[in-house]
């Protein structure tokens, strides 16, 4: 456990040094937020509310989906794959620590820095530009951090799974891209899921992706409450556990494969 926090601390320090990149990301996400707001507001036109999402709700959605890009590594994460291809993986596997936890500790550091420096800061910046929605009830406020943390866990477990492909194929980056694009669509990153036709939503609900982002968004703009909220959090938790379990199983197979082939 101490090793876990040491790794996290180290990773926080490392990510704090990416000064220019963080600023650049902040500016980029901010401007894209403005553009997306413009398009979504135009789409709403005269409509005040669609499927429970108000105009201020859709604006908040556009801002929030930009704010979590870095936190959830929406545009892809290929570090583990690269370590397999460069051979560093051998040293990583020798560390007295579960391979999944080893990467999770580092990703936690990355996520914390990006949540604060890009997530929170962006939402503050956006709030100067727009009237943003916030959770309405105390329960929603309490549930929000949980949903945000579970969203990260889900995103990390998914990225871990995708990256394991590197143990089997030299083309893991190419396959990985499919995985990331799928998560854009079904997590509600491209459009809030509620605005899609029912069949698309049903399809999305067969995947873990809605719980990475869409659940957080709906909680944030206050359309998720009561039993639906409890159910959403429970589903989030179940998906996290499921993906972690799957990750552990595949990881064992991957390590076995590496040992047999000798890298």
């Amino acid at each position, binding site marked *: 456990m101490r090793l876990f926090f040491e790794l996290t*601390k180290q990773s*926080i*320090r490392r990510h*704090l*040094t990416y*000064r220019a990149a*963080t600023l650049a990301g902040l500016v980029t996400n901010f401007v894209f937020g403005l553009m997306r707001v413009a398009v979504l507001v135009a789409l709403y036109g005269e409509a005040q509310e669609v499927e429970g999402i108000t105009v201020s709700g859709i604006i908040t959605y556009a801002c929030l989906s930009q704010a979590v890009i870095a936190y959830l590594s929406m545009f892809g994460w290929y570090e583990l794959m690269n370590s397999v291809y460069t051979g560093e993986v051998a040293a990583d596997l020798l560390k007295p620590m579960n391979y999944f936890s080893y990467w999770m500790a580092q990703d936690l550091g990355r996520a914390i820095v990006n949540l604060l*420096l890009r997530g929170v800061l962006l939402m503050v910046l956006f709030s100067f530009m727009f009237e943003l929605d916030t959770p309405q009830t105390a329960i929603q406020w309490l549930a929000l951090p949980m949903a945000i943390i579970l969203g990260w866990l889900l995103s990390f477990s998914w990225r871990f799974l995708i990256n394991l492909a590197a143990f089997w194929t030299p083309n893991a980056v190419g396959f990985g891209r499919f995985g990331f694009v799928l998560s854009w669509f079904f997590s509600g990153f491209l459009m809030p899921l509620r605005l899609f036709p029912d069949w698309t939503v049903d399809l999305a609900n067969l995947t873990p992706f809605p719980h990475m982002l869409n659940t957080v968004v709906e909680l944030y703009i206050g359309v998720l409450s009561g039993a639906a909220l409890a159910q959403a959090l429970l589903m989030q938790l179940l998906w996290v556990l499921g993906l972690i379990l799957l990750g552990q199983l595949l990881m064992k197979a991957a390590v076995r494969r590496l040992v047999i082939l000798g890298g």
Partner: protein
Amino acid sequence: MNIINVHQLHKQFKVSKHRRGMWGAVRNLVSQDYQLVEAVDHIDFQIGPGELVGYLGPNGAGKSTTIKMLAGLLVPTGGILEVNGRVPWRERQAHVAEIGAVFGQRTTLWWDLPVIESLALLKHIYKIPEARFQHNLAEFTDMLALAPFLNTPVRSLSLGQRMRADICAALLHEPKILFLDEPTIGLDVVAKERIRQFIKQVNQARGVTVILTTHDLQDVEKLCERVMIIDRGRLLFDGQLKSLRDRFGGRREMIVDFTESYPDVAVEGAQLIAHDGVRATYQFERDELTASTLIGRISSRYRIRDLTVRETEIEETIRRIYEKGLLES
């Protein structure tokens, strides 16, 4: 007439200073301090046509910065820099047509292309007449033993093969100057030797001026008559390899085999640095003691069966120069 003329050349870089620790990392985020570093600090040297010069120095000493300025890739902060009568960075295209360069681990060849096709592409790039190209290619193929892998894609070559191909690529257009940055790094003994012999031949037979940076001092010993040593941007030494030894290579070693094993073999004036059974190694200053005096002192007390005198390794010499440089600053 010098082919390279450098006077009071210097190059500054802006380097950011980092604070340490978690709190330091947070503070770096808000404000950063910069520091100006003289990567090359007002150096002077001239190189005549046909010279073969070793350019030495530890990592970060300013070697690459100098070479990059000579090659026209970096613009100096100040000073005079002329190569082939041109200011490299002002007339890049004309300048690079007359130089060849091999930069360490990076290849100039096309990764997925067979070697011969890469070379043919260079023929077009440098507008080498077909006859010259064929003639040079045949000569270099022979000298560097390229034939077995001319049709292999560059990505599948061993490091030594790739380096040979790269050196050939850098010479096909008959440059007047060849810059070699670590040409033997990571190679085995045989491959190193082959490359050294080639460099020597090209320098002598074709009169190509060669500037060689290396960490391998055997390269220097076998190839260069003249060496320049740079550390922390300052030129510490520029002269003959021989005089480098004379000036800085003060200590010599004598290894003595005795006829029997003595418990104590110390003698005055020399330092006993190893003693194992019948063999002992002494170190002594060349200007304090001659070898024959030392032999006299030893043989007056013990029976010598055999002995050898060794000059200091060039590594040792250069280490001493760096230390001296540190003292100066």
